[in-house]
């Protein structure tokens, strides 16, 4: 059973098929993700991360389309055109931080978008403060712990304030306080009603705490539409 597309639908996958070698690793007939928080659940190899990569325009589609507000984001070879990808931010399961300081790492997406230094500072500083990274701003990104690296990767994506935010196993390595901060930020963003937040996670409690819609995946297929867990 799939969720029907409603008026508020923002991100949609239509007849998306992804093939690696001879094997179809993802086959999604229809998946509509409205503004709000969605959690993709499923065992390893279910296709959660692949859904995120497809939505981000970073994996070749053998067939189908990814749509945002009805316009095509990605429909073929990766990477999707840059102006479409800039509407989306993705945090990888195992993020890579470019060499440089934490501040430079967080600012990198803004620099790519040619945002001026004053505005970069205005947007980055409060986020560093909130994520408990301010004291690390001048530290080299390669000297960080796993949890700190994860928070920097999150800050990189959050600071872009993109229409679609894709997070892969985002709570791994985070302590409880950091996890709660992240949950608060995501709920605030979702409350704005303009952002689609999609999280691939094994953390069964996360969906409940985020009051998210849960989409179960298995064998590269979506098993059910966004149900809310009590």
């Amino acid at each position, binding site marked *: 059973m799939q969720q029907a597309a409603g008026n508020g639908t923002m991100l949609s996958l239509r007849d998306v098929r992804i093939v690696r070698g001879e094997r179809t690793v993802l086959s999604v007939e229809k998946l509509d993700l409205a503004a709000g928080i969605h959690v993709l659940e499923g065992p390893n190899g279910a296709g959660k991360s692949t859904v995120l990569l497809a939505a981000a325009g970073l994996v070749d589609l053998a067939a189908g389309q990814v749509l945002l507000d009805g316009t095509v984001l990605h429909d073929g070879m990766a990477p999707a055109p840059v102006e479409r990808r800039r509407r989306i931010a993705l945090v990888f399961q195992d993020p890579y931080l470019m060499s440089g300081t934490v501040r430079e790492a967080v600012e990198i997406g803004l620099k790519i978008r040619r945002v001026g230094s004053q505005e970069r500072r205005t947007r980055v500083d409060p986020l560093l403060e909130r994520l408990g990274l301010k004291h690390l701003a001048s530290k080299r990104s390669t000297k960080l712990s796993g949890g700190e690296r994860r928070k920097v990767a999150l800050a990189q994506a959050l600071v*872009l304030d993109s229409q679609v935010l894709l997070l892969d196993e985002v709570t791994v390595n985070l302590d409880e306080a950091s996890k709660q901060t992240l949950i608060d930020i995501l709920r605030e963003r979702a409350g704005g009603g303009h952002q689609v937040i999609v999280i691939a996670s094994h953390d069964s409690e996360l969906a409940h705490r985020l009051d998210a819609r849960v989409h179960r995946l298995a064998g590269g297929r979506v098993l059910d539409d966004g149900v809310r867990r009590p």
Partner: protein
Amino acid sequence: MILEGLRRAFEMLLSFDPQVWGPVRVSLEVSCVATLLAAVAAIPLGVVIGLSRFAGRRIIVSVLNTMLALPTVLVGLLVYGLISRSGPLGAWDILYTPTAMIIGQTILAMPMICAFTVASVERSDPRIRLSMLSLGAGRIKASVAVALENRAALAAALAAGFGRVFSEVGVAMMLGGNIRGYTRNITTGIAFETGKGEFALGVALGTVLLVVALAVNFAVGYWNYRGGRRQ
């Protein structure tokens, strides 16, 4: 004879004998310019080949790797054919000039720098490019980021390319002509002076060749070490 040659060689070096330092200057100028020109073409090409997947890519990489063993005299011969008076580029009138040596050495260095760049980019972390793309970078910016994150390996590629051209003799002899004070460099100088029986001068030039090669490699090694410590 060797010890006497060494003693005289150091005397010539320390007295800044122009017979020694003239060829050293030519070698440094020609090889540095050739390495830089080769890098400008070979590094972007190597990054593209290293990051792309297309039909025939393996063949291109195999050809590049084969060209690492390209005989210097063969490159000299090919360029000679092009720029000699009767060649298609004879009107340029550049045979037996430093420009001709630079062209030949650039051709010689390019496959090495390109092959090393391909190898380093292929071995680089695939997350670098994906991260940049996910942050909104275009393909070129993402590729530049891959190159920058692999700058230590690219510096080693440059050092290898420089080492290749700085120590070669075939191109310099065929295209430069070993003209004293103009195109005579360290290697052609060693060959010429030793042939004349000026063993000490040959040793002096050989010493500088060795010292410069060592200095370049130590500089790259130190730079990588400092980079590693900063990280």
